[in-house]
């Protein structure tokens, strides 16, 4: 458009104005936008503007073989891809009535917890950056990279591992993997006090994050909040404990809660979950060598695999919340319908829209990062 065609829109004088927040904004997580209405710097209303990352996953999956979709699903949530693979595999196994070997179950638990550690390290680093502290971000990303190195050793891929397939995992661990994982856990454990003094007990963070984006437990339940965000409102609900899958029944861990429901509590829950994940991984390391046997059960030729007709709903606890797949098969070699119930689509759209109201403009980024929403999963 040529500049002389611009026309100022005449409006009555007012303190209120509308602002596009994102998608090209450093305070926004990923490619996501908000349209906020402000009075001064107070948010009057916020409207999510999603769809920048829409790829039509659920449609794409209907056009590919069951096994091809394994490569597609981790792309739904980039920072925490493993739960996607595991949940989709669990759904197929349930439809086919496959019983996966115990060793595969433990290997899956190991990956899930490694992925959770990586995602939480990333999340608190991101939150720190929105409060103007860049050092925690550098630390979090650097330590996450060490976990990615272990993923690379185990699976060949840094971020998208595609290590789980229906029926188990692709191959066994390399020799000495558990020792190196143990050394990494020791290192991460020794870093936790540093994180505390740098970030989680830092007054800059505490004063910025306290009472920001607070919600009560009733609201959280009504809005469909799950995962660490729900636990931050004081409700001890965790799919790993309340609807155990894989080997989680045999593992001893605490479901951490915090009473506040605000950005501070949510981060403190994540901080405590780092500790719990390390604890779970230590148990895996202790237990895994005693579990012998195959890492996957025999499956039919994957390129001509007709999954029996039926429908199923499987859920796992991802680092963002409860992740579920609703899979329908009509007996063909491709899924008839797959629906992904992602935690972020609740957190980033309906919850964030409501929590942003009444807060200040500079806190929107903080609320978004404290909810740890994952835009690719909102849009899918």
């Amino acid at each position, binding site marked *: 458009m040529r500049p*002389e065609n611009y026309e100022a829109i005449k409006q009555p004088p007012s303190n209120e104005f509308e602002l596009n927040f994102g998608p090209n904004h450093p305070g926004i997580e990923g*490619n996501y936008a908000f349209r906020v209405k402000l009075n001064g710097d107070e948010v009057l209303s916020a409207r999510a503007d999603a769809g*920048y990352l829409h790829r*039509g996953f659920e449609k794409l999956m209907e*056009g590919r073989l069951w096994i091809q979709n394994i490569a597609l699903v981790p792309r739904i949530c980039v920072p925490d891809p493993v739960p996607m693979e595991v949940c989709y595999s669990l759904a197929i196994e349930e439809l086919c009535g496959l019983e996966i070997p115990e060793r595969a179950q433990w290997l899956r638990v190991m990956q899930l917890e490694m992925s959770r550690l990586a995602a939480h390290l990333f999340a608190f680093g991101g939150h720190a950056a929105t409060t103007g502290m860049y050092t925690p971000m550098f630390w979090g990303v650097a330590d996450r990279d060490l976990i990615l190195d272990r993923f690379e050793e185990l699976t060949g891929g840094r971020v998208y591992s595609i290590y789980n397939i229906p029926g188990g995992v692709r191959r066994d661990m390399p020799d000495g993997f558990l020792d190196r994982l143990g050394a990494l856990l020791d290192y991460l454990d020794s870093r936790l006090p540093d994180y505390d003094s740098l970030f989680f007990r830092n007054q800059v963070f505490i004063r910025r994050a306290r009472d920001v984006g607070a919600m009560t437990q009733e609201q959280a339940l009504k809005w469909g909040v799950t995962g660490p965000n729900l636990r931050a409102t004081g409700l001890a609900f965790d799919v790993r404990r309340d609807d155990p899958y894989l080997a989680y029944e045999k593992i001893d861990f605490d479901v951490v809660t915090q009473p506040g429901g605000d950005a501070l509590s949510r981060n403190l829950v994540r901080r405590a979950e780092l500790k719990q994940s390390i604890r779970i991984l230590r148990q895996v390391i202790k237990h895994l060598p005693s579990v012998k046997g195959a890492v996957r059960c025999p499956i039919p030729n994957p390129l001509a695999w007709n999954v029996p007709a039926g429908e199923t709903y499987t859920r796992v606890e991802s680092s963002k919340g409860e992740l579920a797949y609703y899979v329908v098969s009509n007996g063909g070699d491709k899924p008839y319908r797959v629906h992904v119930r992602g935690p972020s689509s609740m957190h980033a759209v309906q919850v964030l829209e409501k929590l942003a109201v009444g807060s200040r403009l500079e806190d929107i980024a903080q609320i978004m990062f404290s909810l740890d929403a994952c835009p690719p999963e909102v849009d899918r």
Partner: protein
Amino acid sequence: MNELDKIPVRQEISVAQGSVKRSNPLANVFDELVRFCQSRSMFMLHYCTGCGAIELPPAMTSRFDMERLGIQPMVTPRQADILLITGYVSVKTLKRIILTYEQMPAPKYVIGICSCTVNGGMYWQSYATAKVLKEYLPVDIYIAGCMPRPEAVISGLRDLMGDIKSGSASNWKRYFQNYDHYLGNQQKLFDEDWQTPTDIIAEAEHYGLITDQTLGEHTALLQKHQQPLEALEFSLGEKREKIRGENQ
């Protein structure tokens, strides 16, 4: 078949770069110095468009440390030199990418990270993504991979630095020289009343990059859909002449 389909999109023609005759013998040395400085201080726009963006924080922070090459993230397009397209672009994002690209001051460079920008990658059959990025923007360097590792990203950036230093990274000129081609592809995707707030034709005039590929039937559509329906670049030219005349 609507009107738009009847207009063929022109093939992009690479225009020979006319070398400017510099009478001062020191000018070439000076040019080289400028290019060297440019290649060592690049601001990278902080716009993560797809899943490849997850490898940028490791590449930027302590472990791989892009900053030692003089590359830093920058928050606004107005001060950025490099636009990184990190992965698949949905149609909705592509509009924003084009708006962003046009706002960046020249010389500007586009890097397409991930296979998805090369040919659609995993999402080749998706209804929501634009498949081949270079149809819509001139791309300087592609870094293929799903997703490329931070080392690959850094190596791609180093290649770009080399190109800038040697003066061969001039793809941004092609956007002005072949504007009709790029606009045609954009209109195919976004419909014929697609408009951006930047005046590319005037900018092309400013840089002296108007060729016979710059204006065409698609730019005519651009003019048709804006109000008022006048031959605007001429009126703008006349205005300039007038102002110049008054000043003299």
